[in-house]
């Protein structure tokens, strides 16, 4: 398909602007002006609409295809939620920051405050900040809170390390690094979790925090998690919970009860807000009591009269992670999601997410290697090693699925599983959908034996076949030059 710039015609106009009702201002001095107008598209509204409508049709998406992308929780995003954000479109965030401005923003401030309370309930934390803009930023915020906590207790210099399992998501070590820590990586044991003995060895008083996902990226719940927390605490290290997999355990276990001190949740995963082709997300962070003083500001508090106020000038706060109050529109959808499902609905969601993952796991086990063969939580991780014998890689199976109208599972993650195929169906998929997917997966396994080339050639039904990624990285054409 042509680029929108290739469809442009010099002088063509898109949307019409309102006519001016004020005098034309005297020109700015030439040295402050750009030499020529920026080379934006020049296209009619119809051509623009056709361009983007047809572009959209070149995507797979939850609304058009089963999308069992492991670790991403691609659940159905209820349409009613999509309608909620628009209700808040007109509200300028700066209004709340003006002297006496809170009074004019009680609805929005109250919603953020109450969302924090509900997330604190679900995660077992004392207070939640809704400012972080995505999971990774939540992680960084959380680790900065940890460092502020240690600093306040005079241990800044002493605390040098953050411990992560080798199965952790890349953002965990990356976030800890930005927060100024060195990383200690602990291998995974045959039982599918951070090796307890190696973990004990790794732990010293120089460890500031232990970051884990539970269930982890293998979809497994760590039975030793409490012990791990105790060990960490015995070294004055704090426990960080990566909440990206919270969809497995809502109402079943509260990370706070298990001994976690800091947690982020991905509203765009567990709480039904769409992923937008790469965002926006939202990554609220919850903490235990001892960390409250360090939370980002402004903090939203409910005063004695029940009015919501901003507390901005607190000592000890790590500062700000976003210019305003975080991705409010995303949080409005998540807030609506939580009150709509309610306490029973959230538990049911986790139960059926786990049921679906185990169902797929059991049905595919005969055809694909299951490196960690045990009850999983919301997702299961296979390996294409059986297929590799025939020269077929996980990526080939992924492309075959595309031809059949399925978005592939996550492949090659977690890195500890060779040729990993990570399947997360989520609770919103029907049995019929999963059964059809399972049949196609089985067909892929058989094709790997009988006709590997067919898998190497896939996909054939898309507007393009497999792309030359090396050429892209080499030539670095990241901006249209013509």
């Amino acid at each position, binding site marked *: 398909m042509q680029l929108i710039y290739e469809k442009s015609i010099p002088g*063509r106009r898109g949307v019409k602007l*309102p006519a001016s*009702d004020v005098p*034309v*201002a005297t020109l*700015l*001095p030439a040295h402050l002006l750009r030499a020529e107008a*920026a080379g*934006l*598209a020049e*296209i009619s509204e119809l051509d623009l609409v056709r361009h983007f409508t047809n*572009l*959209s049709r*070149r*995507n797979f998406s*939850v609304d058009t295809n089963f*999308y069992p992308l492991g670790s991403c929780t691609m659940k159905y995003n209820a349409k009613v939620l*999509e309608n909620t954000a628009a209700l*808040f479109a007109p509200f*300028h965030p*700066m209004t709340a920051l003006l*002297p006496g401005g809170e009074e*004019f*923003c*009680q609805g*929005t401030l*109250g919603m953020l405050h109450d969302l924090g309370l509900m997330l604190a309930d679900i995660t077992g934390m004392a207070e939640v900040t809704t400012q972080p803009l*995505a999971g*990774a930023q939540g992680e960084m915020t959380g680790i900065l809170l940890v460092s502020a906590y240690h600093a306040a207790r005079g241990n800044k210099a002493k605390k040098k390390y953050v411990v992560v399992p080798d199965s952790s998501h*890349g953002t965990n070590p*990356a976030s800890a690094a*930005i927060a*100024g820590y060195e990383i200690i990586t602990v291998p995974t044991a045959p039982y599918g979790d951070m090796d307890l003995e190696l973990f004990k060895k790794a732990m010293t008083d120089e460890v500031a925090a232990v970051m884990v996902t539970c269930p982890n990226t293998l979809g497994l*719940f760590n039975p030793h998690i409490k012990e791990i927390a105790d060990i960490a605490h015995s070294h004055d290290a704090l426990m960080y919970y990566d909440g990206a997999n919270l969809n497995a355990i809502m109402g079943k276990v509260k990370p706070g009860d298990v001994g976690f001190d800091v947690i982020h949740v991905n509203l765009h995963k567990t709480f039904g807000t*769409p992923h937008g*082709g*790469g*965002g*926006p997300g939202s990554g609220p962070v919850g903490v235990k009591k001892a960390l409250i003083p360090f939370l980002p500001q402004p903090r939203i508090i409910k005063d004695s009269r029940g009015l919501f106020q901003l507390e901005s000038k607190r000592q000890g706060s790590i500062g700000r*992670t976003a*210019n*305003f109050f975080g*991705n409010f529109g*995303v949080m*409005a959808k998540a807030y609506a999601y939580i*009150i709509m499902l*309610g306490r*029973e609905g959230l538990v049911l*969601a986790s*139960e059926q997410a786990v049921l679906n993952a185990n169902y797929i796991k*059991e049905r595919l086990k005969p055809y694909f290697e299951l490196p960690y063969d045990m*009850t999983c939580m919301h997702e299961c991780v296979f390996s294409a090693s059986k297929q590799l014998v025939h020269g077929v890689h996980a990526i080939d199976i992924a492309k075959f699925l*595309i031809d059949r109208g399925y*978005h592939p599972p996550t492949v090659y993650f977690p890195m500890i599983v060779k040729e990993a195929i990570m399947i997360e169906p989520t609770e919103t998929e029907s049995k019929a959908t999963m059964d059809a997917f399972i049949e196609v997966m089985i067909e892929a396994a058989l094709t790997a034996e009988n006709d590997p080339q067919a898998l190497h050639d896939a996909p054939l039904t898309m507007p393009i*076949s497999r*792309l030359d990624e090396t050429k*892209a*990285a080499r030539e670095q*054409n990241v*901006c249209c030059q013509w």
Partner: protein
Amino acid sequence: MNDSHYCPHTPEEISEMLAVIGVSSVEELFAPIPAELRAKALTIPSGMSEFETFARMQAIAAANTQGMTNYIGGGFYDHIIPSVVDHLSGRAEFYTAYTPYQPECSQGTLQALFEYQTAICRLTGLDVSNASLYDGGTACAEAAMMALRVTGRNKIVVDASLNPFSRQVLKTYLFNLDVEVVEIAPTDGLLDRAGLAAVLDETVAAVLVQNPNFFGSIDDFTDLARQVHVLGGLLIASVYPISLGILKSPGEMGVDIAIGDGQSLGNPLCFGGPSFGFIAARKSLIRNMPGRIVGETVDKSGKRGFVLTLQAREQHIKRHKATSNICSNQGLCALRGLIFLSSVGKQGLADMARLNRDKAEYAKARLLAIPGVTLLQSSPTFNEFSVSLPKPAAALVEGMLKEGITAGVPLGGFYKGLENALVVTVTEKRTKKEIDHFARILEAALCN
């Protein structure tokens, strides 16, 4: 009756599935969680229908004061949004997709992001752009960290006329990396070049400036770029995209990294988000860019296609050595930005920028006609300008809120000595009638 929301299974299906798994109840599947760790019941209320849910959300929105007339900015601006933006970004195939890891079934998102990167490059006059960052504040932090990596130095100099919130975010990101952040206090609402010269040396990784700055002043940093480059540092400029319809672009000034907040490009105010941050740089810096980058390539048959490229920079490959921890970004908001820019178009953005300035200049004249109101800066301004008033700005602004007007942002909270000063924003949405009314109310407020 299974009245669950969005959990489709019937009891029959559940038993079939349990049978396949070989357990007798869903509860059994949670056996791996030690009993003593199991949660007490949640305390949040029971659920409700979508109709009741939406009514509740409407009530929350209704609890905010409606219909405020805005003269505030500070990073978020009350601009028009062409109808096509909602309609097209509202295509389910766009908003219910994930990051385009599988290019063959994600060309829609990938091509759109490539077109977005192109629009940002052309707007800023630079060579490369990524596929979005979180917001304008985090873009400052990412740009600064990028400069630290590129130069191997550990000092950042920041013009204090850069948005105060962005400066806070910058400090929050950097406070644990041993980096020195030096702030230069502005003079006459502009960067204090002398003050800057005093601290500028070859230990400085980057100088961060903003145009137009927080006071609304327009500057030309061409000279600064030269000075910084001589010393081997980078110049980072935060810019307001709408102003680039007419203002000299970072590229033309010799800026190395341009950043900013994309809210004004088709994203609603929405109490602060979601918007998106953009970042563009000189080609030589591409391997140090944070976040996703889409690149052009060809498929087996030579057909053009687009992919996420240079992923070796990113956390999912490089983990703690990544150029940034960002994963989910603000893709859909960036798409809105692209649709906005493509709808307004080349001439349209210039017209829109002029319209903003015309309205602001009209408002400026009206306000300066009020006895005791004077202009804070001598430099030209775009759609924001700063005035000093005969009395403290805070009380005045608070009073005008009750009139349904956000009169501007008092500068006292951010700069001491400016307790009587106010930065006023006027976008193309404000009508002459509204501005005249604003001036009258303000004058009245000043008189009593």
